């Protein structure tokens, strides 16, 4: 398989020796396996969940290839997790679960799904853990270099665009990344959704992962721009809690972070199952 690690070395080396903007952020330096038609090889052995659905827009020869791919797939990517983030008047709230599954087996209940990019930006992890961790870590390196070179903090828009361009250049190689770049910069609280397909969307709230429909339900019902800080944090926590309750691929602990002009802070880390019953008791007491 191609090694992305050696790509990083190439990029870093060239960025130290050569200060031109192009080499620093050049993305098409992927190492490919030494065979005929490496691109097709990559496509043939990796299948993502979305590829398994019918796609009417593709011509017949693409559809046939997909059938072959389904049978030969050795690596399956799926986004079994729940992460959410939203911006409001006073900052950005990020909430995630911490379960990692491989097939029907829970591999871990204590995965770190939030990766700090720098002191005022967080990236969330959904999809392939290795892909997300690598690229978000790489984004952190690039942002640090940007700050050193330009003597100013990188904006969330620019950071998300850098990641987007990198992921777009690898778009058919079977990566699975569903990440949100959340931060606070001179424009206020910002939130971008970045995908391994190459999409980049800006909005005030997102939820990514298999539990996202459940999280959206609670989130959409309670979201307002002028929430207080406690209410916003509580909303994020409740939404993840609801998703972990309904979705079997989400669980573990519920971690909530808050980002404002002073940077990011971890607010809480609660066991998901306990949290649900704690809320239930609170409701009973209120009645």
């Amino acid at each position, binding site marked *: 398989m191609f090694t992305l690690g050696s790509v990083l070395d190439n990029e870093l080396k060239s960025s130290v020796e050569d200060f031109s903007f192009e080499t620093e952020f050049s993305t098409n330096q992927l190492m490919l396996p030494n065979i005929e038609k490496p691109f097709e090889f990559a496509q043939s052995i990796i299948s993502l969940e*979305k590829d398994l*659905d019918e796609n009417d*827009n593709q*011509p017949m020869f693409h559809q046939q290839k997909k059938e072959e791919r389904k049978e030969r797939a050795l690596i399956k990517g799926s986004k079994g997790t729940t992460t959410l983030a939203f911006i409001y008047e006073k900052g950005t709230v990020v909430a995630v679960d911490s379960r990692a599954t491989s097939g029907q087996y829970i591999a871990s209940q204590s995965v770190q799904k939030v990766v700090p990019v720098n002191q005022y930006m967080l990236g969330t992890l959904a999809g392939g853990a290795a892909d997300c961790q690598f690229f978000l870590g790489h984004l952190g390196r690039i942002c640090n270099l940007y700050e050193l070179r330009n003597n100013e903090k990188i904006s969330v828009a620019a950071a998300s665009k850098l990641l*987007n361009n990198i992921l*777009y250049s690898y*778009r*058919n190689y079977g990566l699975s990344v569903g990440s949100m770049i959340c931060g606070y910069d001179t424009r206020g609280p910002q939130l971008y*959704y970045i*995908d391994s*397909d*190459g*999409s*980049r*969307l*800006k*909005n005030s709230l*997102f939820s990514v992962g298999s539990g*996202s*429909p459940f999280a*959206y339900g609670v989130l959409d019902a309670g979201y307002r721009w002028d929430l207080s800080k406690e209410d916003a944090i509580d909303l994020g926590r409740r939404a993840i809690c609801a998703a972990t309750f309904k979705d079997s691929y989400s669980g573990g602990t519920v971690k909530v972070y808050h980002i404002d002009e002073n940077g990011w802070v971890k607010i809480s880390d609660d066991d998901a199952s306990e949290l649900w019953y704690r809320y239930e008791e609170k409701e009973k007491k209120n009645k």
Partner: protein
Amino acid sequence: MDSLVGFVGKNYVIMAGDTNAGRSIMRLKDDFDKLVPIDSHKILAKSGEIGDGNQFCNLIIRNVSLYRIRNETELTTKSVAHYTRRQLATAIRKNPYSVNLLLGGYDKKDQKGSLYYLDYLGSSKKINYGAQGYAALFVGSILDRFWKEDLDFEDGLELMKKCLREVEKRLIIGTRCFLIKMINSDGISVVEKVMINSEKKNEIEEEN
């Protein structure tokens, strides 16, 4: 799942696109602008994959700007359509862009608007009216029936709303909100962001 509609009127081109951006069954963003301005008098309406659309439209916009900077002259809509088609055609057998486009523009030299239909396979056709996505199924016949040469702006807007009403009514995937833009000699202007509610006996609410 994207719906794009456009047609040419008397000295203007009117285009509309839905404002949904989604992933499988979920709507991620409901104020997504699919009508991207290439320069002051041209719009590229994109549909298909979000990432491909963004990157491809950026490619076209930057290259058109580069041409303008190098040659101190603006490209005509026809030239931009040809250039765009060529980019799509060279990519299709290597690294295809899954975007279907409607390119609308107003040329000051001819004092006329023009509309081009561009496909991800590299097809390109100059049209008077057309649509991309599922909307094309419903809207095609309406435009065949009601479109006339040299429609006034008010009549054109009414026809566009008729088309969008039909899309909202018949398309099972909920697309109530559309953004309508118009290009004329003064440039690109956002006409309306329309929210259509066909339950209210074909009444249309206008949003800011």
